[in-house]
């Protein structure tokens, strides 16, 4: 399986993503933002970080960088595109995903473990995962997902919500909403479910010495589904 991780100026989870993809069997290439063409890829990943310093709006300038036109074309042709954290922000800014990510409700950066409930398993990202919830790690300042009432209806009707912030058993409530996201949304798909954006970082949870191992479940499952 071939993967490509895009490095923008200011990306800082690109190496972590590279390490994780390699660990679970992907042949990964790092692609510089100024490149025009994507190499042949089974999945393209937009990593976390602070592309362009998060200046203007998070993800906004990166969404206009050269490589993004190819990423957009790739996604429109059905290619799998995964955006984590800042990558999620770039996906909404580029129009591949609906909505926007606002500053966290309490206006502070949050770094901690959270549980997310998987809402839709009928796609290549989560098909086959037995667990109802995953323990993942968040580290962001702008993860407060927001969209219009009309949009949320559409998102729900199309079953586009991928992950909700929840407790360990999957209960979704305000106590388990770290950043104020509408409906506790932690990740969403596009209509076709080939594009996924999520705030939590599975790449930081890939061995027992780290904050947890549920990231391994995500990647192992992903490569199996793409085969």
């Amino acid at each position, binding site marked *: 399986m071939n993967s490509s991780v895009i490095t923008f*100026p200011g990306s800082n989870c690109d190496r972590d993503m590279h390490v994780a993809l390699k660990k679970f069997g992907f042949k990964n290439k790092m692609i510089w933002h100024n490149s025009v063409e994507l190499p042949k890829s089974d999945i393209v990943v937009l990593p976390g970080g602070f592309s362009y310093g998060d200046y203007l709006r998070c993800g906004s300038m990166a969404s206009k960088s050269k490589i993004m036109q190819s990423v957009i074309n790739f996604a429109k042709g059905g290619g799998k595109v995964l955006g984590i954290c800042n990558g999620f922000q770039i996906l909404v800014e580029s129009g591949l995903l609906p909505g926007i990510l606002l500053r966290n409700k309490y206006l502070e950066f949050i770094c901690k473990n959270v549980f997310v409930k998987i809402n839709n398993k009928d796609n290549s990202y989560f098909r086959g995962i037995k667990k109802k919830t995953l323990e993942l790690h968040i580290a962001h300042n702008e993860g407060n997902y927001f969209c219009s009432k009309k949009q949320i209806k559409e998102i729900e009707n199309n079953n586009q919500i991928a992950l909700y912030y929840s407790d360990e058993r999957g209960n979704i409530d305000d106590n388990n909403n770290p950043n104020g996201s509408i409906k506790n949304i932690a990740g969403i798909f596009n209509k076709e479910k080939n594009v996924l954006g999520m705030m939590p970082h599975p790449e930081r949870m890939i061995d027992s010495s780290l904050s947890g191992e549920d990231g391994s479940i995500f990647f192992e499952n992903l490569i199996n589904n793409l085969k």
Partner: protein
Amino acid sequence: MIVNEQIAVDHGLKKEEYKKICNLLKRVPNITELGIFSAMWNEHCSYKSSRLHLKNLPSKGKNVIQGPGENAGVIDIGDDDAIVFKIESHNHPSFIEPYQGAATGVGGIMRDVFTMGARPIANLNSIHFGSPQHKKTKNLLRGVVHGIGGYSNCMGVPTIAGQTSFDESYNGNILVNAMTLGLVKKNKIFYSKAAGLSKPVIYVGSKTGRDGIHGASMASAVFDEKIEEKKPTVQVGDPFTEKLLLEACLELMTGDSIIAIQDMGAAGLTSSSIEMASKGSLGIEINLNKVPCRETKMTPYEIMLSESQERMLIVLENGKEELAKKIFDKWNLDFAVIGKTTKSKKIELYFDEEKVVDVPINILVENSPMYNRKWKKAKLPKRIKVDKEKFKNLKIINVLNKILSNPNICSKEWIWQQYDQTVMGDTIQKPGGDAGVVRIHGTNKAVAASVDSSAVYCWAHPLSGGKQIVCESWRNLIAVGAKPIAITNCLNFGSPENEENMGEFVESVLGLGEASSYLDFPVVSGNVSFYNQTKDIGIKPTPTIGGVGLIKNYKNMVTIDLKQTGNILLVIGKTEGHLDQSLFSRDILNEKNGPPPEINLFNEKNNGITILKLIDKKFIKAAHDVSLGGIITALSKMCIKGKKGALLKKPNYLINEFEYFFGEDQGRYIIEIEKNNLNNVTEMLEKNSVHYDELGTVNDNELIINDKSKVSIDDLIKSHTTWLINYMSK
């Protein structure tokens, strides 16, 4: 402008220093030259009051690759890997403008580390604020934490440990000390010593603006009511540019183009150019018109004294300019050849085709003032005879809950949750334990780091206090299973011109040196911050120690959380019940006098080495050093982290329950071991002549002391976690 004595004094120079400059130059300096002298001769850059005392600190050891005098210290951790690390203060700017002050402090220390070729892999910080009741404290705390997070999170470097304290002596002078660890291959370390004639001098990074002019001079003066006017001396940070600068520098460093490299930190282009030339016994010539400027019509004076951030000065091999430029272009950073090395041994600056500065470098560096300041020796305070009647009305659980919610003990989760602790994917111990631990990427090794200070002990008796912090740093590393290797120090004091403050400095440094030499725990880098003083009142002396240790196999790392009900708890080290200067005495008995606990370096070393042996044999399931708040506080934190209780019995000592549980004797640890290992462990302790007490066993949900006092772990968690959250949300 014709320079005179008054202008020199306005630049922070003393009258006699100005006379010395005129004598050495054999003429009156022009205004740019005077600016350069004031930048090089201020306390912050010249260490004029501290140099004499610092040279006595032990700085050598078998693992030391580079001691003090470079951008940071370097230690060997085996397999050709080396760790570059340093701590630095950014106190004055953080009080004036907390966000930018703290942010640029973090940015500056990371630059010191990657200047040497090392990729930063961990950040730590030690921050100290005034009384929680003081009107400025809350905003300063919020601003500093946002600033630290804002910079380090964007850089993608995890913040793995820290220390926060509150004390009214910081009401008018907060402390912000930032530490960075970087990883480099031993044969790829870069230094600041220039070499070779007519080598191109390159400027890279951000453009030069008018921010931060005289920052280092501001940091060398006492605060007064005009402090708000000093805002323009605070630099403004841009972590995005620094991230680009980091990647660009590391990319250039993979080749062999660089002869010397120096970041532009305090005193900007002035100190970086002069230091590189001075170390190489060379001269340097710069055309200031070539320096990339952010604003128009900047004068030579402003260009030389600007402290704009995210800039580097590089001496390149001839012919490598194009290759280097390509890399900096790729990262969208400014790149300019601004001068060359010369044999003149002078700094010669040109502007609009006119020579504007012409000063021999040795005058600026070797001839800079050095003072043997007067200092007063501190007396060891008399022991306080605590009236035992005072204990009668106290209930141990109430006291414990009060101590756990004390601002200096309570959980600092509100703070570290705002720092990215896990980026880079190698953090295996996050804040909240004895030390932060990160793996050396792709290996079985890990490095542990901790920052510590004990201002109250240093204030009561600087010599003992100085020893104590080194010991505490050593213990924190031991407790996670790391072999302590070396330290960096950040020496925060009041005015050196005050004999008592100077005495505090001299004696703390003596204590620090004695302990680090005994423990074979050398000082490889550091920084001095004097004049932490508002009008006549200095802060409590606050030397901060950043310790670094090595764990050979990261799977053997130990944490503080209790693991298994039924396991046995031992206290390692002797408990005498020393209450003077303890949190219990100050907070519960309201007794602020008396000496700090005594340090027995033999026991400290022996206990630590024995603990490491026990960890090596995998006997220890959890460990925690005993410090502020004594045995019961340490144990409660172990309970809270592990969500476990404990059944405790005070051993049959001749001391009172409160003395036993809240005393702050040094050299102690609490360890958790399995029942079937008890004999093996006690045998080893006895063989090594280490004192231990059997304190009790791990329990399910309750902490029970001497069968009679009980508290649930949920209650302890509440006491421990609510104070700071409530304080910040009010």
